[in-house]
């Protein structure tokens, strides 16, 4: 694998940077691949745009930012608009239909994973959407096992919500596996 590039994007407060950190950590600590995770945000602590990027490679990674995305996770319409042009031909687009009403079309494979609504209905709050998305990404790309991902999710979330997050990860994995069929 020369470079596999993932961008987790959405609005500030949706946990995209945490998602990037968790994903990068899972790959870094459970595989022999080189991993770099970077992030970008404005000065606002909520709202605005937020993204984190993970680059995975068999070789040492020099340039740590994304060049041409293999996978774009976009939870809001704004983030689709901003980052879709970075997605390579034949890449993977994962959108959340709650935030992305106008689904773009093009030379990429689109998966619509309802992470926000599933989080609300199954777990009572929308806040687990980012973890659901991670589960879906694991199922769709098969880059990392759900067990490895779980071992990275749990220490990075508040202890009293670990069970909810574990459920979110499993639910997301299921959604992703269904969509990938």
């Amino acid at each position, binding site marked *: 694998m020369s470079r596999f590039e993932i961008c987790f994007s959405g609005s500030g407060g949706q946990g995209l940077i945490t998602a990037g950190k968790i994903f990068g950590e899972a790959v870094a600590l459970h595989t022999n691949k080189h991993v770099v995770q970077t992030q970008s945000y404005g000065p606002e602590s909520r709202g605005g745009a937020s993204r984190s990027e993970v680059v995975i490679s068999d070789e040492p990674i020099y340039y740590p*930012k994304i060049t041409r995305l293999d996978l774009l996770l976009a939870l809001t319409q704004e983030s689709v608009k901003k980052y879709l042009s970075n997605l390579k031909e034949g890449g993977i687009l994962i959108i959340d239909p709650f935030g992305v009403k106008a689904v773009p079309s093009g030379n990429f494979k689109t998966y619509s994973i309802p992470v926000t609504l599933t989080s609300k209905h199954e777990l009572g709050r929308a806040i687990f959407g980012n973890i659901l998305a991670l589960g879906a990404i694991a199922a769709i790309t098969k880059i990392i096992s759900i067990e490895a991902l779980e071992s990275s999710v749990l220490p990075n979330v508040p202890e009293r919500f670990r069970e909810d997050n574990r459920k979110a990860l499993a639910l997301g994995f299921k959604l992703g596996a269904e969509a990938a069929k």
Partner: protein
Amino acid sequence: MIFPFPGKPKEVKFILGNEACVEAAIAAGCRFFAGYPITPSTEIAEGMAKALPRIGGTFIQMEDEIASLGAVIGASICGLKALTATSGPGFSLKQEHIGYAALTEIPCVIVNVMRGGPSTGLPTLPAQGDVMQARWGTHGDHPAIVLSPSSVKEYYELTIKAFNLSEKFRTPVILLPDEVIAHTREKLEIPENIKIVDRKKPPANVDKKNYRPYAVSRDDEVPVIPNFGEGFRFNITGLIHDDSGFPSNAPEITQSTLMRLHKKIAAGYGEIKGIEVDLPRGAEVAVLSYGASFRSAAQAAKDAQVGLVKLTTLFPFPDKEVKELAQKVKTIIVVEMNLGQLIGEVERAAGGLAKIAGVNIANGLLITPDVIREKIRACQKKT
């Protein structure tokens, strides 16, 4: 949240550059941090606040960055390895104390995580615009040691190096990452046997009442200054002083003191320097960079027939090595996220022996490899 610091030897972590700095500071023996939070350095303060109280150290958030460095200097002269961390606006505030630490020869490490400037600038975006300020920000004739990491691993290693150099040469050391390296996560394996240097102490049987703290009887020009609280009677002042530590404005004392401060650093150049040159045979162009820009330069240089030069020690500047490089290539391209700062030093050192070109972008984004590739192609055409 797992308490992250300090890691055990051989433990592998996936952590932020700023977190690696905290790991390394603790490993180097740092037991005092005073600072004021400022993006993108705040994770260092947060990490030190978590780590220090658990290992008998002290963390204090001071009222501003001036007081922070003041507290660090005070802690250091009492025997603690001390750290502060900030970004552009705070670094500007610290300049007077940096000069104070340089003249009084009190060890300390100052981290400045570079962000967009000037002024409040771009708090969450990277730049490399503080390079010449790190060299000359404080007034007067002072030498400077300035280190620049280009990866999480290097940030760890250079933090250790910063403390060691600061202790050995009794001087402030500035660690100058940029926001990209500070906020990038990479794998870090905690090393096993880290070499730690502690400041020299006066011999046991010495006359404590009449001790001359700034006397130098060794070739390395480094005085053996006691710590406060160990029974020695001496003075420390930011005025030019003789070897008793009391003020003097005698011309011969002034000249010799300033010369000694510079000689002290020059004599240690072998340990202080940090430059890696990879020059394939026949390469007519070399790309020189530091910090996150080096990552982009390395990506661009891959598969191009060019030399690649990484600086991890910006100052003292590698005059001799750059001159040697300029003798071997036709063009040196200097890549930095500013409008041209270190390039002036490269031009000076190269002394006209090679063309010097710059890739200078200061738009809050990491310079891309494509832009550097274009410049390489343009320079290769011209040679």
